[in-house]
Structure formats: structure tokens, C-alpha cells
């Protein structure tokens, strides 16, 4: 043995990932050594600085990548090229915005996270934790770990890195989904479901990885792509392996029929976590999907295109249709996010540079509007004045919001219009760029279905706007005898079938919450927070409008970043 040879590591190119993961590790140490009173502040500041640092690091790398077209780091395990950097930047920005929502608390010091997540809902321990004002500050390092995984995911250059990144980003999310302060059973159920289904999908992906390794003898994207050039008797392995890896990625993207976790988890998770998940996971997963489709399997496009087409069409149409009948805001936004996965896939299927840049732009526009929308959801609450206030989950609670809180209603309307793809919002240009790329790529039937689905989707987005602006609120004070304290045992499981109208809608509410016989009779109010959420809402609002009105700088940027390093 000649002794150990240290590998060449380009630390600079890894800096965005290193900053975030390093801060996450420091965050864990903070939990151990910093006194409880100061922990929250330290964690929030640390996390914000880490994300800002990642953003700066991406900015510093950008010049070099623009010049050289990108570099492969760690022997090709990580690729720093245009699309990777754009995805990383978008993830960092969206994570930053979500973190502000997560860190926000009401004047009374109530955040979105349960005081002590490990306590049994409804137990004496939970009550004690509440009374003592405990805070579960581990969520901040968890968010940083997840973000670290998301930064690696779209930049992964081999299948093993891809899998590791997937797990690094998923595991913290499973935990975070179960930390909600309100409706804790719902939250824990979501967490468990997400974990089980996520593990299942990871297994599928891993199976695909194994098949691809069996086919090519390598885990590197570049090697597999090179192997596809020569026909071999093992082509069946290649195709099956690619499909399984694609399924694993489509699960994270939330495309049908691998979406079933999405509405339940979005509904159950704490709203700031939902915002983080819906925006950042989607960006990272679509980034990884883009790389896999463009780098590994371009030689297979005739075989795989029907799969992607079918998934895209089913996703767009079915998600839109199901979203129409939702009565819960977060579930509706969940299905809307599924539908957007379909729209994003049309950009992926286009298989040319314009498809890449269009998809990247779409991701940014969608992510900004998503974080903003969930931030608004976290502020709109219902319940007895002075009593416990729950997030206004049922759509009927949004009636007449514009009169009470015109700014929030306006912001939410803009986000919804952006989702619907109405001109002068970022969503319109996003849809326009992916659809036009799809048409150029010969996938005009996809674009046609996409346009029709967008038109139909406008129905359920605008319906909420109509409720906020034109439906008078049911404003009667809640008569005391109609208020029931429901036991957790009666709480239903989160599913479309259970969340009908009437009392069952709130039947899913968690411990110690007020449930009205007529949900419409509860009073809707806007939480007075410390203002961090308001910052996010305003930034997202400005971003959404700017992307719609002055998109050229961003379009130029993603346009110049649309080439993958092979």
C-alpha cells in the first residue's frame, strides 16, 4: 500500500452546500450548549445567515460557471453548472422566505410549532409544556439539513449522490411535518404517512439505481449516458431502471399517480413547513428530474417520452378536477401544487434549452407565489375572540376577508392569479414559457391540455377571490352552547373523503380546539404577529408582480443558464 492519497476537492465549488450543512451541525450544538431562553434567537439568526451565505456563495460561483459552462466536483459526484446554480439560488431564496414565516410568532409567543413535539397530544405533559412556554427550536437545524439536501439534489452527478441527497432532504421533512402546534393528531398522521410513502418511493428509486448500475456498471450519469449510445442485450434493464428512478423523482415532484401524499401532508404539516416543502422540494426535485432526463436518458427519449407525456396529462387534468371540489385551503393549494407539477413536466418534456430555461423560470414564479400564499394562510385564523384561534382551514372562513384585511386579501388574490397564470403575474410568464417551449419541442398536444387545464383551474382560484371580496362574512358571534370541546378520538383522518362540508370539516381539528356545529359561524380574524410573515408576504407579492411585469432580467439569467454539463 502506498498510503492514503487525499482526493482533490474543489471546496469553493461546494461552498453553498457546506455553508448550509455546517450551520445545521452548529445548530445541533446550539441546542446542546446555549441556554434555552436564547436558543430561538440564536437558531433563527444562524439559519438566516447560513441561507444568506449560501446565496452569496452561489453568486460568487456564478461568474465562473458562466465563463466555463460549469465544473464537475468530487470526481463527478457533484456538478456545478448553470441549472444547478439557478436551482440552488432559488432554493436558498425560498427557504429564506419560508424561514421567516416559520420563525414568526403571535404577540402571545405562539408559533406554528408545538412546544414539545414528543408529548402525546392531549396529555398532561403537553399541557405542562404549553404552560411553561417551551419551544422546539430543533426545527431550525432540521430546516437547514433539508435545505442542504435540496442544494445537492439538483446538482447530483451520480445516482448514489442523488439517493443520499434525497434522503438528506426527506428525513428532516418527515419530522417537520409532525411538529404542528394545532391539530397535532393530523400533523403526526401526516408525518407518518409521508415517512411510509417516502420510504416506499425511495425504495423504488433505489431499485432503479441498482438496475441502472447492473446495465452500465457505473453510477455516474455521464457513464450511463455514454453506455446508452451502444445497443446491448441489457437494454431492458436500462429502460426499467430509468422508469423506476423517474418514479422516485416524480414522487418528490408530486406528479400523479405518485402524488397521494401531497394533500394529506400539506394539510397536516405546520403551515410554514408546508410552504417550505411545497416550494423548495418542488424546485430541488424538478431540478434533479431535469438533469436526469437531459443528461442520462436523452438517448431513450422515444421510449420514455410516452411515460412523461402520460404522467403530465394525467397530473394536469386530474389534479385540476380534484382541486375544484376541495373545501380546505391547504388541501386546495396542495392539489394546485400537484397540478403545477404537471405544468412543469410539459417544460421538462420539451427536451430543449428553452424547456430548461422555461422550467427554471416557472419554478421561481411558482415558488414565490407558493411561499406567499401559505404565509397568508398562516395569518388568517378563526375562532372565538380571546380564545384559541385556529388557522382558517375551511374555505367558508375566508368569506369577506377583503373587508377585514384588504392587504392580505389583495396579496392572496395576486398569488392565486399567479397560480392561475393571469397576465401581469409571474405565473403567466412561467406558463407561457413552458407551453411555448413544449410547442417548439413538438409537444403541442401537451401544451393544449395545459392551457385547457389552466383555464379550468382558474375556476377554483378565482372562487376563493370571489369569496374574499364578494361574499359577506358569516359574522355572528358564536353562541356558547354551540361550542363543543371535542375529544381527539372523534378527530377524523385527513382525506378528501372525510373533509366534507359541515361539522366533519372541523372534526379533523386536533386537541382542545373549539369546534362549532356550523363552521361558518366561527369568527375569522387575522393573527397579529411579530411581522416576519408580513415581510415574506410583501417580498413575495413584489416578486410575483415584478416577475410578471419586468421579467426580462430573470429571463435572461435563466436563458444563459440552460445548458447542463454532460
Amino acid at each position, binding site marked *: 500500500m502506498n498510503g492514503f492519497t487525499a482526493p482533490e476537492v474543489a471546496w469553493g465549488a461546494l461552498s453553498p452546500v457546506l455553508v448550509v450543512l455546517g450551520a445545521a451541525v452548529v445548530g445541533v450544538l446550539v441546542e446542546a450548549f446555549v441556554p434555552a431562553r436564547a436558543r430561538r434567537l440564536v437558531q433563527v439568526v444562524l439559519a438566516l445567515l447560513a441561507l444568506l451565505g449560501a446565496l452569496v456563495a452561489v453568486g460568487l460561483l456564478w461568474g465562473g460557471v458562466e465563463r466555463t459552462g460549469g465544473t464537475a466536483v468530487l470526481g463527478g459526484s457533484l456538478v456545478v453548472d448553470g441549472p444547478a446554480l439557478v436551482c440552488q439560488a432559488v432554493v436558498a431564496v425560498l427557504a429564506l422566505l419560508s424561514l421567516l414565516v416559520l420563525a414568526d410568532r403571535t404577540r402571545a409567543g405562539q408559533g406554528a410549532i408545538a412546544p414539545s413535539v414528543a408529548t402525546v397530544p392531549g396529555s398532561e405533559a403537553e399541557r405542562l409544556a404549553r404552560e411553561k412556554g417551551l419551544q422546539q427550536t430543533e426545527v431550525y437545524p432540521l430546516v437547514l439539513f433539508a435545505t442542504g439536501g435540496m442544494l445537492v439534489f439538483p446538482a447530483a452527478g451520480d445516482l448514489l449522490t442523488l439517493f443520499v441527497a434525497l434522503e438528506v432532504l426527506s428525513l428532516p421533512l418527515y419530522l417537520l411535518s409532525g411538529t404542528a402546534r394545532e391539530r397535532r393528531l393530523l400533523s403526526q398522521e401526516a408525518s407518518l404517512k409521508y415517512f411510509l410513502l417516502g420510504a416506499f418511493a425511495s425504495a423504488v428509486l433505489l431499485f432503479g439505481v441498482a438496475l441502472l448500475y447492473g446495465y452500465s456498471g457505473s453510477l455516474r450519469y455521464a457513464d450511463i449516458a455514454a453506455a446508452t449510445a451502444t445497443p446491448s442485450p441489457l437494454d431492458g434493464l436500462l429502460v*426499467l431502471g430509468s*422508469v423506476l428512478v423517474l418514479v422516485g423523482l416524480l414522487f418528490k415532484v408530486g406528479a400523479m399517480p405518485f402524488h397521494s401524499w401531497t394533500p394529506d401532508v400539506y394539510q397536516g404539516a405546520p403551515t410554514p413547513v408546508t410552504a417550505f416543502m411545497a416550494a423548495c422540494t418542488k424546485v430541488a426535485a424538478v431540478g434533479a428530474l431535469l438533469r436526469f432526463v437531459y443528461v442520462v436518458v436523452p438517448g431513450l427519449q422515444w421510449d420514455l417520452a*410516452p411515460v412523461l407525456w402520460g404522467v403530465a396529462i394525467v397530473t394536469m387534468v386530474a389534479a385540476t*378536477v380534484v382541486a375544484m371540489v376541495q373545501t380546505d385551503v391547504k388541501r386546495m393549494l396542495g392539489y394546485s401544487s400537484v397540478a403545477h407539477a404537471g405544468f412543469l413536466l410539459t417544460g421538462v418534456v420539451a427536451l430543449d434549452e428553452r424547456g430548461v430555461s422555461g422550467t427554471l423560470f416557472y419554478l421561481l414564479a411558482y415558488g414565490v407565489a407558493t411561499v406567499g400564499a401559505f404565509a397568508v394562510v398562516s395569518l388568517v385564523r378563526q375562532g372565538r375572540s380571546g380564545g384559541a384561534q385556529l388557522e382558517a382551514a375551511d374555505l367558508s372562513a375566508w368569506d369577506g376577508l377583503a373587508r377585514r384585511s384588504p392587504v392580505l386579501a389583495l396579496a392572496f388574490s395576486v398569488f392565486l392569479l399567479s397560480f392561475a397564470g393571469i397576465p401581469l403575474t409571474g405565473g403567466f410568464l412561467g406558463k407561457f414559457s413552458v407551453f411555448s417551449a413544449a410547442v417548439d419541442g413538438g409537444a403541442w398536444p401537451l401544451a393544449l391540455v395545459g392551457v385547457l387545464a389552466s383555464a379550468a383551474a382558474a375556476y377554483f382560484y378565482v372562487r376563493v377571490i370571489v369569496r374574499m371580496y364578494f361574499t359577506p362574512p358569516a359574522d355572528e358571534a358564536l353562541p356558547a352552547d354551540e361550542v363543543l370541546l371535542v375529544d381527539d378520538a372523534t378527530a377524523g383522518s385527513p382525506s*378528501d373523503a372525510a373533509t366534507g362540508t359541515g361539522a366533519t370539516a372541523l372534526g379533523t381539528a386536533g386537541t382542545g380546539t373549539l369546534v362549532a356545529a356550523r363552521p361558518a359561524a366561527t369568527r375569522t380574524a387575522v393573527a397579529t404577529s411579530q411581522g416576519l410573515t408580513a415581510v415574506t408576504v410583501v417580498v413575495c407579492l413584489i416578486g410575483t408582480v415584478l416577475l410578471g411585469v419586468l421579467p426580462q432580467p430573470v429571463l435572461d439569467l435563466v436563458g444563459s443558464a440552460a445548458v447542463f454539463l454532460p
Partner: protein
Amino acid sequence: MSLDLLAALLVAVPLASAAVLLVLGRATDRWGHWLGVLASAASFVIGAVLALELLGRDAEARVLDVTLGRWFDAGQLAVDLGLRVDPLSITFVLLVTFVGTLIHVYSVAYMEHDASRRRFFAYLNLFVAAMLLLVLADSYLLLFVGWEGVGLASYLLIGFWNHNTAYAVAGKKAFVANRVGDIGLIVAMGLMLAATGSVGFTQVHAAAAGGAVSEGWLTAIGLMLLLAACGKSAQVPLQSWLGDAMAGPTPVSALIHAATMVTAGVYLVVRSAPVFDGAPTAQLVVVVVGAVTLVYGAVVGCAKDDLKKALAASTMSQIGYMMLAAGLGPVGYAYAIFHLVTHGFFKAGLFLGAGSVMHAMADSVDMRRFGGLARYLKVTVVTFGLGWLAILGVPPFAGFFSKDKIIEAAFVPVDGQPWRAWVFGAVTLLGAGVTAFYMSRLFFMTFFGRPRWDVPEEEARAATARAAGARTAGANASGAHASGAHAAGHHPHEAPALMRWPMIVLAAGSVALGLVLATTGFTTWLEPVTGHAEHEEPVLSVPVITTLTLLAVGAGLVLAYLRYVRDEVPVAAPAGSPLTRAARADLYQDAVNDAVLVGPGRALTGGLVVADRTAVDGAAVGVGRLAVGSGALARRVQTGLVRSYAATTLLGVVVLAGVVLALQA
């Protein structure tokens, strides 16, 4: 100052004044009307300067094209914002601004007690600006802007007292009838674009005159232009709105619905001379429309007891004369414009006289309740009488020089077809006689005979009741309205000076304008636009025609004298012959319109509404229901059970893998 700027100012000054009056609103209430008068007068001064400039030039150099800049570029079509100052347009400018200024002055007094006088003047200024734009435009498109502008001003002014529903409805009726005509102009422009690729006068007329456009195209363009002209000038079949338009304040009737706007159709035809010259069929239709309208208006005018509506019918009839002349081709263009100018003076004078009578009689317009007013309204009777002589065509008053020339021209055979000369000549001759009758009837009923305004209410009611059984519903309504307006013990009084002087000036025009223009070569002045007409001999010699005309006029006058001065005029209208009853009801124009257009239109829209509800909405709602229904169905899959979720995922994997492997094989 450059001529370009002057031409632009011509339109800009009244437009700016209208904008100031409308934007500043009540702040200008105290002096706004004088600003309106000033703007109109300023336009007249500018017009006069331009006219002098043109007069100082040689005949060939009297067309001044002013380009103010590019209006718009749309593909191959580029339209300039251009004005054309030539003898025809400057004639109109002088007519509009001169008569317009007089009527502005008159309105200061007439509208004195109206709270919205400022708004009235804003609309009047808007009208003047739009009318000037209409006549000055050098392309059909810019003309159309003015065309719509005068339509808007007319609508606003007819419905000026829109708190009265009937008046508002009258405004709407005028607007709708005009829209029908506007479609003609739009289609005509489309045809021009298709045939010549332009809507500029220069290009279109050059193409039409140069034979670059086939006769079929020219006929189509001509007929569409005629449709537009019919709408604006109240010619058959779009005549129905003019009578109702008398709902507007009387100065409006004088300016817009007698002297200027309603003659825009004649302007359009004369301006499009090269188009019509190349389309004899279209010309024949123009002549027929003119002839029909002139008789139609004359017949209606004989039966109306409403002073203003009788004058409106007369306006229609006189424009029929102009239209007929314009359809005769080069031989008639100049006389059409000549008659238009003289008519503008005497008819505006007559309307202002009518306004003065209404001023004296508490806004009543029922001639059966007038009579003997000559003693009280001395200035009005003289000015009105001069206008009356002018419209009768008694020499040497204005109408003699213009109308008799049209009758002469109508007797000229066209393309060697003497039948046309005889038919149209006879119609114009007949028209002259009937005109003399109804105008004399109107004059005598108002100013002479026994005063009838102080007939006691009871007696009038009894008379009304006696006649009620035989009366048409329309006449009944107007009679009842009129008697309501009367209170016994009227003291008719002459109008204030601000109203008298415009009437006097217009009366002077009615006396002398025909002679002056005829002797100074007005028709030659128009030749750069209308072209030179070779002199052709009518089928009868000129002295014979003149004699016949004067005989017809004399007969009409004497008949009217016998019936309305010598005989007692009943306060309640007698039943009358079927023709009289038909004429009172405007020859059933509204019934015809209802039956031919409104009924089928209602049926069609009703059918469309039903189709929209059932088919279109049904399809939309059906699709919506289907989507929601399938959504409700699809969400059953979302059971909330992890095992079923995992099963879905697995099923997806299997299906996708199966599809791919099947494709491979």
C-alpha cells in the same frame, strides 16, 4: 401664422372650450356660456381668414392639404392625421361657424333659466368641433371620427332634458338610427381598403376617377356611402329619428337638426363625387332616395300640428332636394351645396323663430292653440316671414336661386334618358307646391287668424272630446299634452335682444344670400371639388320651368290661405282623411320599423338568448358539472389510508414499466 396651424386651430379651439367646460364643471357656470360663444366665434374668424386665403389664390390652387402627422401605422395601412381645406370644406366651415355662433348667442338667452346651461354649451362646442373635423378631414377614416362626434353631440343634446323619459328615448332612437347608417360608412371604408388599399380622399378618388376600380366596386361603395348619408341626413328609409329629435332644445334643432349636421349626408355624397360619377346605378338610387324623401317629408309636414315637427318634416324634405341634386352628378353637385347653404340660413332662422314663439307661449308647440301672434311678436313675424318666403322660393329670396336651380337640373335628361327628367322634374315641381302649402299653413296658423291660445280650457276640452273618437292615438296624446301646457290668459311677449338679433341676421341671409351667391359665382367657386358641368338643356325651357314652379308655389300658398286664414282653424284637430291621419302618424314609419325591423330583431335576440341559455350556458355548466362530478368521484380514491396510497403508487410503477416494456418489444 402658418395655414397648417390655422386649420388645426379651427377644430382645436371649440374642442378645447368643450373640454374646459366639461372638466372644470360647475366652476365655469357663471361665464361658461360666453366661453362657448367666444370659441365658436373664434373658429368663424379663423375660417374667414382661411377663406380669404383661398380666394386670393388661383382656382387650381385652392386645395390645401394639411398633414398634422402620422395618425397610425397598421401593417400596410398608414393613415395620416390630415385636413383638407378646399372650397367645399371652407364653405361648410363658414356655414357651421357663422350660423353656429349666432345660435350660441341665441342660446345664451334661450337657456338662461336652465341650471345646466354650461353643459349645454359644452355639448354645442363639442358639436362644432366634431362637425368641423367631419368637413375638414382628408380621409374617410378621420371623417368618420367627426361623423361619430356629431352623432354623439346630437345624442347628448336631443336627450339634454333626459329627466323626461320620452326625450331620452328620442335621443336613443336617433342614436340607433344613426348607428345603422354608420355601419354603411364602415363597410364603405372596408370596401375602399379592399379595392384601393386606402381610405384617403386623394387616393380613393384618384383610383375611382382613373378607372382602376371596377364599376361594381364603385356601386357597392356608393350604396354604402348612401346608407351612411341616409342615417345622418334622415333620408328614407332611416328618416324616423328626425321628428323625435325635436325633443332637444330648440337652438339644437336649429343648428344640428336643420342647418348643419343633417346635411352631412349631402356633404358625404358630394365629397365622394368621383365614386358616384363612376357608378350610375348608385347615382340613380341617390336620386330616388332624394325624391322619395322630399315627397315623404312634404306630406308629413302638411299634417303636423306640432310647430317643430312640421319644421323637421320640412327639413327632411329640403334635404331630399339636396340629395336628389347630388345624385344628378356634376350638373347637380354645386346646386346641392348651394341649396344646403341657403337652407342652413333660412331653416335655422325659422327654427329660431319657432323658439321665440315657444318662448312667448310657455313652451307650447301646438299650432292649433296659436293664431294671431303677429300682433305680439313683431320682430319674430317679420324674420319668420322672410324665412318663409325664402323656403317657398319666391324671387328674389334665397330659396328661389337654389331650389329652382335644382328643379331645373332635375329636368335635365341623364344619359339621354328623358323619362328620368320628366319623372324627377315632376316630383320636384310637385314638392315645391306642397312645400308652399305646408309652410304657408304653418306660418298662417301661427301668426294669423283668430287667436286661439285663450280659448277657455273647458271649451277646448269639449272640442277635444268631440273629436276624440275619430282621432289617432298619437294626435290625441299630443293634443292632450298641449292643452295641459295652456293656461288661459296668456300675454305673449317678444323675445329678448340676444334672441332677436340672431333671428334678424339670419333673416337678412334668407333675403339676400341667394342673390349674392348666385351673382358672385358660388357654383364656379366649388368647381375644384365638384368638377365643371357642361351645360345641358332641360327637357322644358328654363322660363317655362320657372313659371311652372311659381304657379305651383302660388297654388299652395293660396290653398293654405283659404283653409287657414279665411276659414276658422279648429282648436281640436278634425278627423281628417286617411291620408291626413297617416301623415300625422309620420306615414306609420314607426309601425313599419316595428314590423320590419324591431319585431324580427326582438325575435332573433330572444332566440339567441334562449340558445345562449340552453346551448352555450348549458354546455358550459355541463362541463363544469362534469368536472366537479368527476372531481368528487376522483377524490374517493383519496381515502386517507396509507395502504391505498402505496397501492396507487405501486400500480403507477407497474403501469409505467409495462407501457415502456411494451413499447420496447
